[in-house]
């Protein structure tokens, strides 16, 4: 099968491309910088119609991961990468006659800030989603689902908090902060959160490529199915990276307020770096969000194969191997 993976420079995109390659698929990847993967590659921006058309042409399926994932920055950048990028990919799929599109989204598109406990994949809502990332991803998901048709089967996969060796988004940032002694434990640290070890998420996306067709027009949540208190997740990530664990005791209200102030200051100063805390982050770290993935397992014929403990062990081994290279704290 010929499969295009967009956004293969990220951890999950790369793992997905590798998993497809490993089972013998004919894989093409699309991203801005060379990936180093042993497969066909198109370099370009996902919002550039010409580059996308070139990458999409002749594919049986597209796995669309390319997105701007962050907690700060101007809305326009998110709009361009997430909304226009997705529209460009969807348009190219239609124009080039691709039959299957697996759109990678995020559970945060349906998260209005209150605790999510054991829920399924609720509809995306740009009106209530929190932060630029979630809102633009919500718009993108609705756009992608709207394109679901007899000729193009669209399936949405929402992996939740993907982490693993080499991760710069989640693990890298947590470890960097912990090393600097500014990883706060917001609230009681008890909020149960689901996370996904990267190999499980990649396997889910491969399973989604196969399921796409008979299953379509629907969002699916993917996680390890092992929710844990957020404090414990942070502590175990830090333990694996051999950095000090989170500091205790920043009340949620204080963290949220600090996030609001900091976001304002960052925006006013025009800084491009990531602020230490944002309102979105405060909520993410203080509110439960774990999911019922029964429907996903049933529809994809998939189940996580790397348990949480095994994932932490692999992460620890990776940090041990990378010891001295500072690979985790880019």
């Amino acid at each position: 099968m010929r499969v295009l993976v967009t956004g293969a420079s990220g951890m999950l995109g790369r793992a997905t491309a590798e998993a497809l390659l490993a089972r013998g698929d004919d894989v093409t990847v699309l991203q801005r910088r060379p990936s180093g993967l042993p497969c066909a590659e198109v370099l370009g921006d996902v919002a550039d119609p010409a580059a996308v058309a070139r990458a999409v042409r002749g594919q049986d399926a597209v796995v669309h991961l390319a997105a701007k994932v962050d907690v700060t920055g101007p809305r326009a950048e998110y709009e361009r990468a997430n909304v226009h990028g997705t529209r460009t990919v969807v348009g190219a799929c239609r124009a080039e006659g691709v039959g299957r599109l697996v759109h990678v989204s995020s559970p945060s598109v349906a998260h209005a800030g209150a605790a999510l406990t054991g829920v399924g994949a609720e509809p995306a809502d740009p009106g209530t989603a929190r932060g630029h990332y979630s809102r633009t991803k919500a718009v993108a998901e609705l756009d992608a689902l709207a394109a679901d048709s007899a000729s193009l089967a669209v399936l949405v996969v929402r992996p939740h908090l993907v982490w693993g060796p080499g991760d710069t988004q989640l693990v890298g940032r947590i470890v960097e902060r912990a090393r600097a002694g500014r990883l706060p434990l917001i609230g009681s640290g008890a909020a149960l959160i689901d996370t996904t070890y990267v190999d499980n998420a990649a396997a889910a996306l491969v399973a989604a490529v196969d399921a796409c067709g008979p299953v379509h027009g629907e969002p699916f949540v993917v996680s390890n199915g092992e929710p844990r208190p957020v404090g414990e997740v942070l502590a175990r990530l830090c333990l694996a990276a051999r950095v000090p664990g989170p500091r205790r005791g920043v009340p949620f209200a204080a963290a949220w307020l600090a996030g609001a102030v900091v976001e304002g200051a960052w925006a006013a100063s025009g800084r491009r770096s990531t602020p230490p805390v944002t309102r979105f982050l405060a909520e993410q770290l203080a509110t439960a969000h774990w999911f019922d993935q029964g429907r996903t397992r049933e529809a994809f014929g998939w189940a996580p194969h790397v348990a949480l403990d095994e994932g932490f062990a692999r992460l620890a081994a990776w940090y041990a191997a990378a010891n001295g290279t500072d690979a985790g704290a880019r």
Partner: protein
Amino acid sequence: MTAGNATPVPPALPGLDPAWSRHLTVADRTGTEHDWHVLDNGVENPVGTLLCVHGNPTWSYLWRRLLAGAPAGWRVIAPDQLGMGWSQRLPGLRSLEQRVADLGDLTAALGVTGPVVTVGHDWGGVISLGWALEHRAQLRGVVLANTAVAMPPGDLGPALIRLAHAPGVRSAVTVGTPVFVRATTALSRPPLPRDVRDAFAAPYGSAARRRAVGDFVADIPFSTGHPSRPAQEAIAEGIRSLQVPALLLWGPRDPVFGERYLTDLRGRLPHAALHRYEGASHLLPEDAPQYATAVAQWVAELPDPSLPGSALPGPADGGRRPTPAADEDPRPPWAALTERADDASPAVVEVGGSTVSWAELNRRVERLAAGLAATGVRPGHRVGLLVEPSADLTAAVYAVWRAGAVVVVADKGLGFRGMRRALRGAAVDHVVCGTAGLAAARLMGLPATRIAASSVRPAARRVLGAVRTLPEIEDAGRDAPVPAVPSGDADCAVLFTSGATGPAKGVVYTRRQASAQLALVRATYRLTGEDRLVAAFAPFALLGPALGIGSAVPDIDVTAPGSLTASALAEAVSAVDATVVFASPAALRRVVATAPELTAGQRSALGRVRLLMSAGAPVPVGLLAALRDVLPSAEAHTPYGMTEALPVTDVSAAEIAEAGDGNGVCVGRPLPGVEVAISPFGPDGAADGALTGTPGTAGEICVRAAHVKDRYDALWATERAAARPAGWHRTGDVGHLDAEGRLWVEGRLPHVISTAEGPLTPVGIEQRAERVPGVTAAAAVGVGPRGGQVVVVVVVLDGSESGASGRPRARQARRLRMAVAAPDLADAVRAAAGVDVAAVLVADRLPVDIRHQSKVDRRRVAEQAGRLLAGTRRRAAGDR
């Protein structure tokens, strides 16, 4: 058929399907046409019709859940009475007689020809019954909720309605302002959501639209001269002749129609099944939404009137039918008293108080029974007991039985409010009180006659309202005949469940069932006249005479098992030279802790005890070993059972050791004559499978035996749910049988954790977690939606138990302190648990029931763990 002046029902009222809503024009007997609004589920060729009549000032919206959950094949019709809801407004007052006729005209117009069950609430009750009496041929049953058909003599009418009736007040309150309309929905407990309250008020937006609300109140016949009085009285008397099944659904917190209205209705419909929804108020269909399921079940199970014998109404509250009279009369509980009428040895010894011999006790019981009968205690009357365990209490209990009356035992462990609810719910006719009990009974406002257990000074008697004292009754019984022996199938006792979760349930035993229980206890523990008992556990302290053995009442607070010290136990044991001790594990823990203070003489008395029975929960192995030092000759036994059936099984300490570890607590094999079966779990965690004895199959434990309760009291729906299949009792416990026929208890049904992979039971997980060093107690609970829950284990660590101080109730009320466990502890508990554990939490203690101090309230643990694990509840202010 839509009339010109029809007012449309607003769209999108919560819970109301617009498709049910219809208008039609019906001519009344004067030929005047009226536009009616009716909710109608529109079932064609129905099995029957439910005719639902609302009261004032509600409308058919009240019955939406019954329309949504109609019994299969039944049509449900709920009209808005004329002038009310969305039906046409009237130029003047509509009398009761007219309203009954109107309803008949409407059902004729709607083509209701087949069987009908009427359903009425508030003043809709009397109108529905009026219809019922005029349509006897098609009437199949009547359902009534918080209503009245008559004002008991001298009654001024429900106080609140009466207030609204006062001249000048009525029009202002009911018509001129929406106060009455709004106040009615404000009575709801728990409070109704705003959108539902608005829906009730929607048709009554202006004074003109409220006119009939005032007229309705005006038509309530408070005075004998009232024009509607004859119609009301005809209905109130007429229903005494109704031969159809009746179901009464009652919200006891109703400030409008109090207990006396329920009592009045039960007097007129003595065969009616009753379900009291504790906590519910006047608007029962709102306060107890589950009423709709109960009505649907009751209707679906109505007997077919074409079958012979089916016209006989079923027993009240769905209890078992009396055993055929062919059975020999059961051995009465006072049999041993008669047999030992000349025995001067002690029957009951109060430690530090009096001693009563068998001969004295027998004499006293006979005189008291005769005196009770002579002073108005009739067979079947219910007698509440608010007396501390004592020789007086023992005598009173056996006298009440001898007089053919029913003892109602509400222990202090229920708390004042729980006792009030229990005694009011059981509708006690008399109450026997100690001094504290008299004050409590007065505060409870029980409509029962009060009997003081001992002499009281005249002044105190006036204040406390005691009508008689037991000594006076005993005197009165000296010359009165001893009453005839009552039927063995009559009720003899109402006991209450511990109320650890939810209101305590009344459990009714007949004398035959109680007799079977006593025989089973005697046989199981080989009790003979040579044995003597010390029971530190109510109400077993009362059973010595019935078991035919002498007993001592230890000097302790029976509601605080922790107050039994080793020397208090030893004093009670030596007072009767006891051979048998019955106490809870909590009490035994205290005994072990205070053992060093025992004298040599006390140790020697304790050394003669041959049998130790632990109540409520098995004695942990460590405690058993420690007890061997205190009670060296005692064989430890734990009966398993519940208020509804005790004992079911028995297990000795040796048998527990032999059984080893398993998923749950081994409670031994079913006793002779007791059948135990399992109703297996389905994938959703409900235990509804067909009964099985297959080893290893987990599900709800079900019991059948001669000594199982007769029924729950005034809880028709609960009884129906528990007595499935007929003759069995569903215990609410979950567990399995093993290949050796032993029963293992794995927890309570509501505490089953419903995961995506299927149900998990808590006890096995807890036992494994408790083996982790440093963990003294554990509770395994589910967090999240059923069918997708994750397991959370809450542990108490060695040295952190702060529960030993303070009064039980204060301790219960205090909030639990809970936090996420350190990673090492979490790892250890996860490794031990044997299932995936999402979170390990540490608590300062676990909440336990007051009666046994041992049953963990996992629901409360789950609620609090769920809140903690949901993270912050604060919705960020100033959302972007």
